[in-house]
């Protein structure tokens, strides 16, 4: 009977030894790597999750990344009682915070997925399987994209946690303890990976929608260089300009549509896609999760807001903004700036009780309706709205900032870029600025106005030194009027769980 103990799956699952007998497996596997950002598991919207340490909906990459980058800042706060969720806004998180932990495990899981793809598609293995011709070319493209996706996640990891564990395709899968890497070394690794694939990945605007191309690589390099001083202590603004220019020259344009259209259900086709460099697509029927865009559309709806206007069955009454963000706009909620899209009916500007949705203005940004107001393919829970992870407006503003910070380039061009964005926001030239207006303070505010709730704020505040020991907004430091916190909070703690498991890890200073 002993051979009866050799059992392998008999349903639609397969072992790694057999799964690649089907050529379609490669495309399905690279799809999983992209799905790592938008979905939480193998069943939509929930079921068979990737991660189990936290509720599946909360464990979604985009939802957690948004929470890390926005809830910790003046742009957003949340009403809910979920675990230590509110500590993100209070800036009093500890190494035991489960959202910080799950973000970290989600990042390293994403890295592990990319590593596994690269391990399973080495030239030797492909030769062994007799893979040639068009399939071989496709797999080589996928490999470049897998390396881009890993670099993207390592950038997020470096930005948040500074010194994470480091694993590549050279490591096995098992119960081993990865080594820790220092932030500056990780910077070098990410840079080298991006430079290595710059010419291997499919050219700018040549790849399928939803997949990364050369412009995505350039944009990520721009972000890396713009923040290099934070990561390594040495500024790289000239390199930021070089790569911003490459992206800008690749044929994208600022969409001449109302600002709000960039965040609608049809934002992959309503014209706003012209400025999208790298999107995370969502779909009401085919790409369902309780994280990602489902969270970003539902959570900010509550109070007297009409769910129909958002193309959903009801709000989750969670996310609002602080008065500090409202005050970034001249004229505040009545600003002529079309990006100041606040919902104030029944809401107060100042916050008394964080758990009460009506305390604090609501922000109208992501919606599951098209330009004509028709709901997306699932008018209930899951939006069609895509998340613009990289868009040209961001690259324009990065270019302008690198210029102001002395990286070279042209101040005139920088001001033109800013004005192009402001003309779309105002609908005319009333909001235009001149060369002398283009200061660092202006740029930090302008980035908030243009890019709020797009996962940039925490990184921006840190680059401008305004996140922890400088900068005050309501409930920062867990006091209603706001207070500064200690500078070590610019870096998140390595989760206590992983310190407990992985003896190679040293906690970040201050925690």
């Amino acid at each position, binding site marked *: *009977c002993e051979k009866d*103990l050799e*059992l392998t*799956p*008999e349903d*639609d*699952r*397969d*072992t790694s030894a057999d*799964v690649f007998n089907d050529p379609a497996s490669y*495309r399905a*596997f690279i*799809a999983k790597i*992209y*799905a790592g950002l938008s979905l939480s*598991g*193998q*069943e*939509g919207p929930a079921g068979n999750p990737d991660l*189990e*340490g*936290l509720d599946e*909906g*909360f464990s979604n990459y985009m939802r957690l990344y948004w929470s890390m980058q926005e809830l910790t800042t003046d742009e957003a706060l949340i*009403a809910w*009682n979920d*675990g*230590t969720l509110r500590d993100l806004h209070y800036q*009093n998180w500890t190494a*035991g915070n489960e959202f910080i932990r*799950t973000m970290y*495990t989600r990042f390293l*899981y994403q*890295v*592990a*997925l990319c590593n*596994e793809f690269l391990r399973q598609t080495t030239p030797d293995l492909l030769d062994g399987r007799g893979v040639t011709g068009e399939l071989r070319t496709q797999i080589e493209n996928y490999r470049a994209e897998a390396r881009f996706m890993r670099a993207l996640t390592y950038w997020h990891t470096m930005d948040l946690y500074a010194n*994470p564990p480091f*694993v590549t395709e050279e*490591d096995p*899968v*098992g119960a*081993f303890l*990865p080594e820790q890497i220092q932030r500056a070394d990780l910077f070098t690794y990410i840079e080298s990976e991006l430079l290595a694939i710059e010419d291997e990945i499919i050219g700018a605007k040549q790849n*399928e929608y939803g997949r990364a191309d050369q412009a995505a690589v350039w944009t990520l390099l721009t972000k890396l260089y713009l923040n290099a001083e934070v990561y390594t202590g040495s500024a790289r603004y000239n390199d930021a300009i070089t790569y911003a220019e490459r992206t800008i020259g690749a044929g994208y344009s600022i969409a001449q549509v109302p600002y709000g259209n960039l965040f609608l259900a049809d934002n992959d086709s309503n014209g706003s896609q012209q400025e999208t460099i790298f999107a995370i697509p969502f*779909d009401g029927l*085919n*790409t369902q999760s309780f994280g990602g865009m489902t969270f970003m559309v539902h959570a900010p709806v*509550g109070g007297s807001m009409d*769910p*129909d206007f958002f193309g959903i069955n*009801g*709000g989750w009454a969670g996310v609002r903004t602080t008065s500090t963000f409202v005050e970034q706009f001249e004229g505040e909620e009545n600003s002529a700036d079309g990006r100041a899209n606040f919902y104030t009916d029944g809401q107060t500007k100042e916050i008394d009780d964080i*758990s009460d949705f009506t305390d604090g203005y609501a922000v109208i940004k992501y919606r599951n309706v098209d330009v004509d107001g028709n709901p997306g393919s699932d*008018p209930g829970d899951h939006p069609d709205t895509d998340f613009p992870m990289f868009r040209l407006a961001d690259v324009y503003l990065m270019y302008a900032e690198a210029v102001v910070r002395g990286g070279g380039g042209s101040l005139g061009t920088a001001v033109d870029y800013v004005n192009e964005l402001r003309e779309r926001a105002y609908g005319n030239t009333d909001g235009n600025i001149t060369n002398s207006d283009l200061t660092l303070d202006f740029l930090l505010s302008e980035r908030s106005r243009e890019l709020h709730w797009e996962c940039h704020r925490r990184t921006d505040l840190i680059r401008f030194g305004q996140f922890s020991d400088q900068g005050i907004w309501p409930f920062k430091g867990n006091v209603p009027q706001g207070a500064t916190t200690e500078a070590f909070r610019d870096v998140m703690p390595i989760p206590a769980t*992983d310190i*407990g*498991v*992985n*003896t190679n890890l040293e906690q970040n200073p201050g925690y």
Partner: protein
Amino acid sequence: TVTGTITESASGLPIPGANVVVKGTTNGASTDFDGNYTLSEVATGDVLVFSYVGFEPQEINFSGQSTLSIALNEDAALLDEVVLIGYGSTTKQDATGAVQKVSSEEFNKGAIVSPDQLLAGKSAGVRITSSGGAPGEGSEIRIRGGSSLSANNSPLIVVDGIPLDQRGVQGVRNQLNSINPNEIEDFVILKDASATAIYGSRASNGVVLITTKKGKKGAPFKIEYGFQVSIDEAIDYVDVFTADEFRTLINENGADPSLLGNATTDWQDEIYRTAVGGIHNLTFSQGFENFSYRINYNNTNKQGILRKDLYRRNALNVNLNASLFDDHLKFALTTKGSFDDNFYADTGAIGNAIVFDPTQPIRQGGAFGGYFEFTQPNGNPEALSPRNPVALLEQNDEKARNKRNITNLNTEYRFHFLPELKFISNAGFDYSEIDGREFVEGRSATQQNGQFQKYYTGFNRNTNLDLILNYKNTIATANTEYDVTAGHSYQEFYVLSDLTETRNGMLETDPTTINRNSLESYFGRVSFDIADKYLLSASYRRDGSSRFKKENRWGNFPAASIGWKISNEEFLKDSNAVSNLKLRAGYGVTGNQEIGTNYGYLGIYSPGQSSASVQFGDTFQNTLRPEEFDENLKWEETTQYNVGLDIGFVNNAFNVTLDGYYRETEDLLARIPTAAGSNLSDLLTTNVGETLSRGVELGINTTVVSNDNFNWDLNANATLQEVEITKLNLSGDPDFFIPQGGIAGGVGNNIQLWRPGFDPTTFFVFRQVYDSEGNPIEGAYVDVNGDNQITEADRQAYKKATPDVYLGFTSNMSYKNFDFGFTLRGSLGNYVYNNVDSNTAFYEELLSPPGNFYKNGSKNLLESNFNDPQLFSDYYISRADFLKMDNMSIGYLFPMEEVQFRASFTATNVFTITKYDGLDPEISNGIDNNFYPRPRGFVLGLNFTY
């Protein structure tokens, strides 16, 4: 008048207090201190009955003698009782392990649907906690507390020779419901490793052997009919605000009264009902010289107190026994076939009935099938409001039929040329097929895309073949009996599941899932009984599991035990006071491989569903996910030591069994956080950590009175136990912990933890600060680390859900044709987290809901006065010691000629004494949240025997 002396036949010593009675009358007498008696008014032709506890009664026809002296023989039945021990049997007096048999006379009374409930409170070291009050609900069965963390902690259950799948079968409330409680002859519980190790890899959490009733050799044809009718009702509801109190609360706190309704609805009263049930058993049995049979048909219908909840069973049990060639060849066929129908009510109604606004009506006409629901201005239901509990029940229909057959053919051949040698084969299967469907009306407020449909089907197939050789003989020169057993076993489990359900308004079918795993085993046991004084037993099992890779596949599980029958030594042999004394000691190693996953050592790729695909260009691409794995996965190993003492006093009228154990589990299979980046998930099932458990178990059986008219038996047991995690990760960091025990009230919230040095059900809380009047100060907690901030670093391990001590007490009395019995059960040192209070009793929740509605909640609000949720406060951890009367029963046997007729009346869940102020202190995981209340029941039973 007759006089005489009653003596012990073995010793010739007089027996004081023995009885002599004229049969069929109340005329009787007792012996004095010297064993002498005098009985008057005796007539020729009368039958005199001489009896004494622990001795065989004797009947003498009175023929006018003036003196009549009698020597009584010791009744050995008690000690000679056969006890199963796994792939064989022994007698009670020769058992060397912690083994207990619970027979049908001792079972709990009542209209019991689930076999496990028969056993609750009957055995030391065995804790049975029903998961709720639904009919046929399953139980958490823990023998010696469970030794594992993530692997299964339930005992292995063997039914008439077939080990059941420890994971249960799909789609049913309780896999044991396929066994009709009426047909169970006895349970044998193997507690310590020396007894269980013969079951090797599945034995770490004890073994329960269930034997069903059989026809008896040479018994006359008998028809039995039993009928029970039961009524169940809720004992209590969660204490929430009434409609009037709720209006006052809203008005007094300045909330907007315009959102209130004008009705007065007690939602809990609306969802619960008085439930009725009926159980019929019809049994035919007969025994011939070489053949006997017993056939039972059972029909059970039992409503749940939650409306629409119903359990129904139609089952046929057949036992056939044949004996050929002068008992050289025996066949025993047992087959149990059942249709198990579960009508599931939507238990979501329980929580919604607590929080639904009592000022709103049940119905208002219009949308949602006429049920009242909270709506948005556009008429859609409010996204975050509670749902009408009555509508939840009425608009949902779910039923599932489980067709199951458990059959075992046991063949025993005693070799003609060597009658001491037996060959035994057990060939059995357990096949269970599920066909379930659920419909939710399209107009229900829970649906946005029309009617919801769900169809789930599949089967579980468990096949088993044991081949065993047994040799029993005596070495006369050494005065030694020995018993040698060797065998091979192969068992395979195959599970297939299909699911089709409505998603986004479309009916979608998932790919079929198939899971197969198998176990192959070799086992052996030798037992020696030297001079009827010294017992020695050793067993060995080698198990191979398909769940581990080749190099780790096989595990070895040895055990040994010794016994010393001290009472058979010369110095005690003649003692009347100490009639039995046996010292036992055992050691054994057992395993656990029940980790849920079948291919945990293999790298597996799982495809994704189309609803979880990604957009590439204009098409959607399905995904393929590599799963986490640990190729070095291996057996979890438990080593257990047991010392026991059996004492019988006064001719075994008073028996005490005392056992102490010490158990260590290593290479614990736990689902724990993996080092980030090292694997393909955040949690991984791997061998890590250790637990330690120990305990003392005391069992007392006593016959207080035994004579012709009056019998009184008492059975008491007490268990003292503790379990502790001693290691939890590779680094052995003592501060490392893993949060456990999810609670309601915010996602991702846990109230318990696993941490070295603590019980696995330990709570993890902030220490509440109270004002001088003893009221909790909201948000004020002890700043444990002194950093002037209250963060989760200030949470402390505090109390636990498992009891330190639990007790069982059973009394059975009979006087003439009356009988009366009751069972009490108690638990000490267990704590409960009141999640109903913590999640519903704060002003913010009641007064400022996120929408146009109000929510009701627990009236604990008026005590805590909390404004915001304080989910992690130890304020909600309550002592939950309890004493329960599980059942009380009275019966009368009507004396008739041809037919025997017995009527009984039983009350179940009679009372609970506890300080816990939630609904029920008995919650298996210690988190009280929307618990299906255990009802109080009244049962009328009628039994006819022809």
